[in-house]
Every structure is written in structure tokens, then in C-alpha cells.
């Protein structure tokens, strides 16, 4: 069963987003920015979802194979790091290859992201398919939602 990515769309209405992006570009935000916020389109992009018994992190890292991404969890901060070689890097010295566009990010990267508290790092699992890494971090027993029976008086 494949879900719908729009589920991630809990935030703003999307219709006017191009306009806001343009506004952000022309008039940078004067206020304070979250210290861990990243510019849009940073590689790799990350989505996080939550179910009753686990937190799932999706790392959209096109071009990386299973062994290319290093994951570590300290307290509740997940760090993903690795390196991606793009053709653009390899041929840096190759003047005979004319480029028309170079939009894909290459080089080494490291990103950290805070997760909710109370995850069981020892039981974490990671899978990888089609350039997406999926990390499942089960919640500790005591944090799972519990049903409370109502007893008749």
C-alpha cells in the first residue's frame, strides 16, 4: 500500500507557494530563522512521519547506494552523512565535455535533524530503495499510546 505524499502537507496552502517563494527571494525574511533550517532543495531532502509505534524518516538521496549513507543517532538527533559523486565533478578537468546545465548537487554532505524524544535507537532499522532511505525508529514502550479502560463505578 503506497500512501500519499500529500499527507506530509500539513502546512500552508500550496496554491500560492510559487508566489511566496518568489517573495522570499526578493524580500528575504527579516525575522529570525531556525538555526537548523536548511535552504529549500538541500541534498538530501528529508521527510519525517509518525505512527502510533514508530517514527519513520525518509531520506531522498538519489544516486546513493546502500553503503554510501552513514546514519547515526545521538539522543534524539539523527545525523545523515555521505558523499555523492556527480558526473559534473568527475569531469571537472575535461574541457571537451560541454555542459548546458549543472543543477545536481555533488560532494560530501552532513545533515542533522531533531526527532521526537523517546525513540529506541537499538531497534532502529533502515532500508533503501530507488534512492530513498527509510529509517524506522520504534518508540519506547512507555511512550506508545495506551488505551485506558473506563470502569463502571
Amino acid at each position, binding site marked *: *500500500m*503506497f*500512501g*500519499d*505524499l*500529500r*499527507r*506530509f*502537507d*500539513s*502546512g500552508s496552502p*500550496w496554491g500560492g*507557494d*510559487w508566489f511566496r*517563494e518568489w517573495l522570499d527571494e526578493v524580500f528575504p525574511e527579516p525575522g529570525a530563522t531556525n538555526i537548523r533550517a*536548511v*535552504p*529549500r*532543495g*538541500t*541534498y*538530501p*531532502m*528529508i*521527510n*519525517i*512521519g*509518525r*505512527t*502510533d509505534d514508530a517514527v*519513520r524518516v*525518509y531520506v*531522498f*538521496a*538519489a*544516486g546513493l547506494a546502500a553503503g554510501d549513507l552513514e546514519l547515526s543517532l545521538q539522543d534524539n538527533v539523527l545525523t545523515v552523512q555521505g558523499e*555523492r559523486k*556527480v*558526473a*559534473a565533478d568527475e569531469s571537472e578537468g575535461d574541457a571537451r*565535455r*560541454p*555542459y*548546458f*546545465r*549543472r*543543477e*545536481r*548537487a*555533488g*560532494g*560530501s*554532505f*552532513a*545533515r542533522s*535533524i531533531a526527532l521526537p524524544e523517546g525513540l529506541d535507537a537499538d531497534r532502529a532499522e533502515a532500508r533503501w530503495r*530507488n*534512492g*530513498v532511505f*527509510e529509517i524506522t525508529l520504534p518508540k519506547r514502550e512507555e511512550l506508545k499510546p495506551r488505551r485506558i479502560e473506563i470502569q463502571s463505578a
Partner: protein
Amino acid sequence: MNEITRQEATREPRVQGSEGAGGERDRALQPPVDIFEEGNALHLLADLPGVTPESLNIEVDNNILSLEGEIRLEMPEGMTAIYAEVRAQRFARRFTLSHEIDGDAIEARIENGVLHLRLPKKPSHQRRRIEVRAA
């Protein structure tokens, strides 16, 4: 320092306006691409994480090349989002081809979410070396 956020290397995947009656459903991310010329062909690399060979659709119509791929993730029922940078269900991008590209000979493969398209030139347009003769 995260080199990958270098301005010139990063293109944020922009959200395109929806087309037609599909409305919200049709929202698509624009994937970053590299395009270069090598060996009498143009090569196009596109980052399409989460797109499978089955969910990828490549078409050439009237010299317009369209790439479209649905992002397929396994998500358990009842999951709620707590943070999202990818906020669309699919990638889409279109390019106009010049007349020297042989539309019938385009080859495509996708590996680890990276699409590699090879767009060969028609034989009549292949690169020829021009000798410069001394006067």
C-alpha cells in the same frame, strides 16, 4: 560546512503550478538535472528519488521531451507527517529538443533514483572535425 548547499550547485526543486482539472493532485516537483554533450549525444541526468522504472514516464512529442515520475514510498497506514521537505507526489519536467536529436533513438535507464537519458544526434548532424589548412 555542508558543501552541498553551494549556491551554484543547488537548484531547489520548484513546485510547478497544477495543470488542468487535476488541481492539487497534479502538483509536481521539478527535479534538478545535469545536461552535457558527449560522444555525439546529449546526456541528461535527473534526480528522481523514489521513482521506480514502472512509475517513470518519458515521452517525446513534437520535439517536447517530458519526464514524469511518481514518487513511490512505502508508508504505513495512519502515519502523520511531522516534518516535510518533499511535498509532492511526483516529479515532472519538460524540455524542448532541437531538431538534430533523433527522438527514436533515445535511451533511458534509472538507477538509485537517478535517471540517465542519452539523446543521440541524427547521423547527419554528428560532429565533424574541420581541418584548418595553412594558407
